[in-house]
């Protein structure tokens, strides 16, 4: 297997505060990788560094071996990396269907086309319907995204993320704020849609993490203290200490 | 988009609105007065409109035209803009009005003369006649002349000729500053001044020849400082309206007390702004007499007009009286309001003004041939002051119509 994403000596400071302090991490292709850590460990910052929302202070980021440090988000996306957001980030005034469709226009090679009618792009529309089916929102296709319920918006968020068919998917706390059954539903959804893809997710809910991830990286105060398969992490004393005796199960 | 039903409904509303336009009502003879009624030149435009309406009322009181039809002057605000003037012209034409009057800004006049000519050619059954009472760019009766345009004021060249005669007579005068508004009239004044001075007094140095944006400069102090620094002994300016008002304000604030040779430095607040500082220094070239009034008829007219407006207004543009009267005479002579017939009647028409001058509408270029006067701003010997300020204009010299006349290059296309 080859490496999907590689982080080399990554640093990030905001002002004088150093948040990420020399992270080295490699995620293999096809792997489901979770990044966990206590509050303030820098998970979100790391996530945003990988997806090019933030620029690292030092260090390199490689996407399938290619150096992408400093590339704008849209270029990263065009290279086959898609991300979701922790705070729901959809196109509120457009319909659910349109949201999903916008997620794939570039990937389907329609780019800045200003002569084709979107309603006549059969491949795009078929695929959009498929994605809606996948996230279970076919019946809500025509509803403006802004009026969806929270859980629906989260699902749509994932729908937009996967719409372009990127083979590296980054999810930021996909189950945040959900109740048990919604969470189970989402885990199933994530499992299904990331089949044969590389998944990197930041997650709080340990049941989700251990249910989904092939490998887990534990981040504490901007440094990786452990990285390995779930079993190994579960038994790692340093991790247990970091979580201050919290039950890691 | 909206659906079909709404479209039809919209169409119905639209159509109803458009059909309801007032259509031609034949009874009164209407004159569309297209001039600035808002903006920096509103004061000049509205006072012109009042004078035109006043004159029309006088004519109506004496029986109107064509044996009883009344003259009605309708104001159309062109905001001093050539573009807006053409939009208003379309309105005027759409309303079935056959005569338009305009005077402020030669820029507007250049647009109107062109548009009227085009319109009259394209729609000969809806012709209009353009009576220009005050736009004095010489080209309007020279290279741009039109059969459908008549000018009732002396053009900038005629006026400059008279002004420079006065300047040339002053042997001590060596340095002159020219300042004007940046458009055709300001440029025409500057060109005429340079040309006339170089002919009459080649020894006079033009120490400044400046154009400023029209209607936009509120504080002329920087310009005054510049004039002062240039060492000029006199200023020539064609400024009018707010631009003349603000220029004289800044000059009097800065204590610049050199002579000003002007076209329009009186009335509409300007006389008041010049005040004591300009006595014996500010001169202006114009058509009619302010003081002494020359005839009792003129004296009475001034009195009636000032009484009507509580002494706040003066009949500042006697040429408007000529314009409306000559139109009335021409309509009567043609026995018709058909613009083509009225135009024919106007050509070569002689008219004795209320203050006793005899003027002629030259047929070759439609430029009124008229005497010109140079007056000085003063408070002595004034029967009619302006702006209720105690100051007014006293006629100093007079150039007869024959002397004031300039040749024309007009090659008129006649229908």
């Amino acid at each position, binding site marked *: 297997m080859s490496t999907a994403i590689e982080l080399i000596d990554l640093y990030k400071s905001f002002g004088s505060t150093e948040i990420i302090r020399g992270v080295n991490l490699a995620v293999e292709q096809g792997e489901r990788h979770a990044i966990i850590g206590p509050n303030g460990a820098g998970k979100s910052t790391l996530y945003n560094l990988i997806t090019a929302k933030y620029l690292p202070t030092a260090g390199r980021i490689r996407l399938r071996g290619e150096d992408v440090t400093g590339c*704008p*988000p*849209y270029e990263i*996306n065009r290279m086959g990396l*898609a*991300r979701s957001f922790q705070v729901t*980030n*959809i*196109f*509120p*005034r*457009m319909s659910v*269907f*349109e949201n999903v*469709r*916008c*997620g*794939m*226009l*570039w990937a389907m090679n329609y780019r800045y*086309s*200003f002569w*084709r*009618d*979107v*309603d006549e792009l059969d491949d795009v529309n078929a695929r959009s319907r498929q994605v809606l089916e996948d996230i279970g929102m076919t019946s809500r*296709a025509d509803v403006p995204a802004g009026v969806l319920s929270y859980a629906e918006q989260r699902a749509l968020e994932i729908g*937009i993320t996967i719409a372009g068919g990127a083979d590296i998917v980054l999810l930021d706390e996909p189950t945040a704020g959900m109740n048990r059954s919604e969470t189970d539903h989402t885990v199933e959804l994530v499992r299904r849609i990331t089949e044969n893809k590389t998944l990197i997710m930041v997650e709080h809910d340990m049941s989700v993490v251990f249910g989904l991830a092939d490998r887990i990286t534990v981040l504490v105060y901007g440094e990786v203290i452990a990285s390995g398969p779930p079993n190994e992490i579960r038994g790692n004393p340093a991790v247990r200490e970091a979580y201050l005796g919290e039950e890691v199960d | *988009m*909206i*659906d*079909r039903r*709404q*479209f039809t409904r*919209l*169409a119905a509303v639209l*159509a109803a*609105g*458009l059909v309801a*336009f007032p*259509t031609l009502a034949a009874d009164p003879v209407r004159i569309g007065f297209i001039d600035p009624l808002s903006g920096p030149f509103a004061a000049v435009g509205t006072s012109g409109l009042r004078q035109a309406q006043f004159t029309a009322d006088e004519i109506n009181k004496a029986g109107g035209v064509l044996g009883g039809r009344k003259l009605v002057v309708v104001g159309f605000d062109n905001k001093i803009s*050539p*573009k*807006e003037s*053409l*939009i208003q012209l379309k*309105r005027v034409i*759409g*309303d079935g009005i056959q005569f338009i009057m305009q005077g402020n800004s030669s*820029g507007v006049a250049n*647009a109107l003369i*062109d*548009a009227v000519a*085009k319109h009259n050619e*394209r*729609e000969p059954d*809806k012709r209009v006649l353009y009576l220009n009472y005050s736009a004095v760019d010489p080209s309007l009766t020279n290279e741009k002349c039109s059969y459908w345009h008549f000018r009732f004021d002396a053009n900038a060249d005629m006026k400059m000729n008279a002004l420079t005669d006065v300047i040339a007579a002053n042997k001590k005068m060596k340095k002159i500053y020219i300042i004007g508004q940046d458009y*055709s009239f300001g440029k025409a004044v500057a060109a005429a001044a340079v040309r006339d001075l170089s002919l009459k007094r080649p020894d006079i140095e033009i120490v400044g020849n400046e154009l400023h944006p029209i209607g936009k400069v509120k504080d002329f102090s920087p310009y005054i400082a510049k004039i002062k620094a240039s060492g000029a002994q006199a200023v020539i300016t064609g400024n009018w309206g707010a631009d003349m008002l603000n220029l004289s304000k800044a000059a009097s604030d800065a204590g610049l007390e050199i002579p000003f040779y002007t076209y329009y430095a009186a009335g509409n607040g300007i006389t008041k702004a010049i005040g004591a500082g300009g006595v014996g220094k500010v001169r202006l070239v114009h058509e009619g007499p302010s003081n002494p009034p020359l005839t009792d008829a003129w004296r009475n007219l001034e009195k009636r007009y000032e009484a*009507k407006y*509580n002494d706040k207004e003066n009949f500042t543009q006697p040429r408007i009286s000529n314009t409306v009267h000559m139109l009335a005479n021409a309509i009567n002579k043609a026995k018709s309001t058909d613009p083509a017939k009225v135009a024919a009647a106007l050509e070569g028409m002689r008219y004795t003004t209320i203050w006793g001058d005899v003027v002629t509408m030259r047929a070759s270029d439609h430029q009124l041939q008229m005497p010109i006067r140079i007056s000085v701003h003063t408070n002595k010997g004034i029967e009619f002051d302006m702006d209720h300020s105690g100051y007014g204009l006293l006629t100093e010299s007079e150039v007869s119509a024959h002397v004031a006349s300039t040749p024309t290059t007009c090659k008129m296309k006649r229908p």
Partner: protein
Amino acid sequence: MAVANTAAPGRSSFLRRNAIWWAALVLVVLLPQVARSGTAIAVLNQMCIMVIFSLSYNMLLGQGGMLSFGHAVYFGLGGYFAMHLIQLAGGAGFFMPLPLTPIAGGLAGLFFGLLFGSFSTNRAGTVFAMISLGIGEMIAASSLIFVKFSGGEEGITADRTDLTPFFGHRFGSEVEVYYLIAGWMMLSAWLMYRFSRTPLGRMANAVRDNPERAEFVGYSQRRVRLLSFMAAGFFAGIAGGLFALNYEIVTEETVNLVTSGIVLLQAYIGGVGFFAGPIVGAVVYTLLQTLLSNYTEIWAFYVGLIFVATVMYAPTGLTGIIMMHLPIYRVRKLRTLALPYLKVGVPALCCAIGVIGMLELLHYLSVRAVGQSTKRLFWMSLNVEQPTPWIVFGLLAVGGFFVARRMAPALVAAWEAASAQAQGRGER
């Protein structure tokens, strides 16, 4: 036609969509037969030009989320270039039929859209608004200074009939020009509608809604905005070209801030959230400007009032208000609203009459000549020096306001009931 922004994909059939365009075409062709007076044609011409201009403006504000205070730059520069082409072709006599000249305007708009858009579309929102204002002022001021190009204060003029005849037409008469302008309007409107339905058009919506998200689905927000901006510039230029050939004059005012402000006013009053919004806005504004101004000098004040009221109480504009009733209309419940509307509408009308009356009297006080004291208003002669008209109008205004306010909750309730039914039906 479906709402452009939230339209259901593939739902409204191709045929039905086109039916509305055909209907519009028929309307446009027949209008001059109904309204024949010169003024009416002049108004229609102005209206059609404004429709294109407003639609192009909405490509920025409504569809792209860019609030521009300088859209007249592209309108005016388009006008200047088209006018230069007309002058040039008229003088040199080369082949150039008049109907093609607006393209020169469009290309000029496109070019300057690229030029100014290249640095002004980096951001949306307030920043974009400010830069657009600066560019607008700069171009307006320049157009008075670079006289060789713009003709200065006087602008530039040309004779449109000098050009190559177009199938025998020289476009001397207003009606011929109307058909030329209306043809361009239909074409431009259709193209702009099409544009809103293309991948780029959809992504312009996406960038408006959420620029960050758009970046993470592969689109550069700057590029999307720049391309929309150029397209808007192109159509504004077309409108400017039509302006040039209609009025045969282009001056500084076609590029200045006032024109930019008017187009914002039109689009917003009509409703920026809908494709048809700016059309409604342009039609309503032009009618107010040309008809209302025959009756009152302070028509612009009323337009201002309508605008501010729209911003505060009906941000979806006139079209939004119409669209709100569409679902209710579909379930045939509009009738249940009639009485509540009447109960609010009549007192509201009284209030409006009162307010208008007072405003007109107030205005009359400032403009009347000495000794005049009677104002003709609402087919009555009123003496402004008497207290009676003031009291009556004051009572109408205050009374109408309070009665309307008391009746309003009933209307809201009725409306909610009706729309609940409409929704219930919609979900079934």
